[in-house]
């Protein structure tokens, strides 16, 4: 049984309140009509399936009903972090101990810049 921290509710709740929704950070092509069959098929069907750290989309189905992201290890099943939509993971396959702080800061400022 997972205990998952919903970044919107700010609470750690049981797995059954949530649904997994597949790989996170998949951007819909901006102009679908301009996609080749290859690109469109890749967008619809082809997913990373790593043995190790994976970034996933989950929904707090019987809670706040919001989508958020989870970084989870697919062998140990350990949940390493949860973060809101639009944010980037701090733990990745390249940086399993967490990205160096300046990189995170840079990411955050970049993101804030984009948002602003």
């Amino acid at each position: 049984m997972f205990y998952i921290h919903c970044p919107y509710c700010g609470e750690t709740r049981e797995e059954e309140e949530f649904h997994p929704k597949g790989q996170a950070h998949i951007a819909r092509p901006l102009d679908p009509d301009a996609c080749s069959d290859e690109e469109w098929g890749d967008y619809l069907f082809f997913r990373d399936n790593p043995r190790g750290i994976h970034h996933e989309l989950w929904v707090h189905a019987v809670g706040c009903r919001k989508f958020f992201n989870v970084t989870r290890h697919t062998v140990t099943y350990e949940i390493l972090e949860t973060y809101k939509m639009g944010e980037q993971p701090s733990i990745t396959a390249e940086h399993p101990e967490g990205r160096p702080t300046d990189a995170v800061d840079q990411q955050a400022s970049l993101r804030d810049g984009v948002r602003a």
Partner: protein
Amino acid sequence: MQRYSGFGLVKHALSHHENWQRQWRNPTPKKAYDVIIVGGGGHGLATAYYLAKEHGIKNVAVIEKGWLGGGNTARNTTIVRSNYLWDEAAALYEHSMKLWEGLSQDLNYNVMFSQRGVLNLGHTLQDMRDIQRRVNANRLNGIDSEVLDTKGVQELVPIMDCSKNARYPVLGASWQPRAGVARHDAVAWGFARGADAHGVDILQQTEVTGFKIRDGRVYGVHTNRGDIEAKTIGCVAAGNSGVLAKMAGIKLPLESHPLQALVSEPLKPVLDTVVMSNHVHGYISQSDKGDLVIGAGIDGYNGYGQRGSYPTVEHTLQAIVEMFPIFSRVRMNRQWGGIVDTCPDACPILSKTKVKGLYFNCGWGTGGFKATPGSAHVFAASLAKGEMHPIAAPFSIDRFNTGALVDEHGAAGVAH
């Protein structure tokens, strides 16, 4: 190969059963083979067997990182059926069913194939409409299948709660009498013994760590026991297919999920058929040993740990107890999880890849065991000829880009 027979049993009894021949050798890898099969589960071993037996290609290695049938082959609920909706899928699974029917004789190995029939229950009007459609499609494809009403189901399975008071009342079912169960270990062992007898090298505890590719053509594999060369390589690695594909620089549309099953303590014979329910999601049969074999659904998230989640077990057992109140106090003995490689359209991939000479047979998801002989038969033919067998052709990896999916997801009997 020493053939098994009643006479042999008597003969070996005289020497206290101490002189039985080993079922397969444990050879050291050669430098090169004609064909390498990566993955020593049922599908892989059977592919090697049919390559040797039907196509005369005997210089074959099966490379397995663990031991034979240590993966999903021995982790499933052993159900064999062919009542699939779409023509492409029906052809593949029915091809397999026909091979099952003569398999014990063909292998000279008792795979304990028992055609005890499979019921796929309907609990809603829409279920029943889908069942009627699927049964009609089956019959047009020459697959035995009929629609039963509540009374028909009750007659076949007297212990099932078919009353109107059930939370999800049983309105009827599809019934395939030729379907049934087989002993999964025996399937792996029988094919291994048969392949070995034809000269196939079965290399256990040998892990593929990379592919040797030059000019877009594969010519061998790296393993923890040295490099082995072959111009034709078939990967049949179930849940680990994605990892292998990545080594070859290929992307597969697969996601690996844990799928779990459980068995109870042994009971006296009480259930002589297989009952599956899509709607409440549980399936159950009773083994020859007497234990109830129960299958659950997959966990929704990706995972490679060979165990499943507790909520999934709980939901499945709720469904089983709802259908069979008589089982409410049966204790469970064992529970386990296997890693299944699920495809977006719930159909397998039998395909060439952009790397010449490298073939994949994967994506069987939750329903690969039933297809073991059929999948291997057409895959072996494809490897031997270098062209995909007509039954395998619709399951090319290209379908995810062309859009020609074989969408069995909602249509299959159950359990995808």
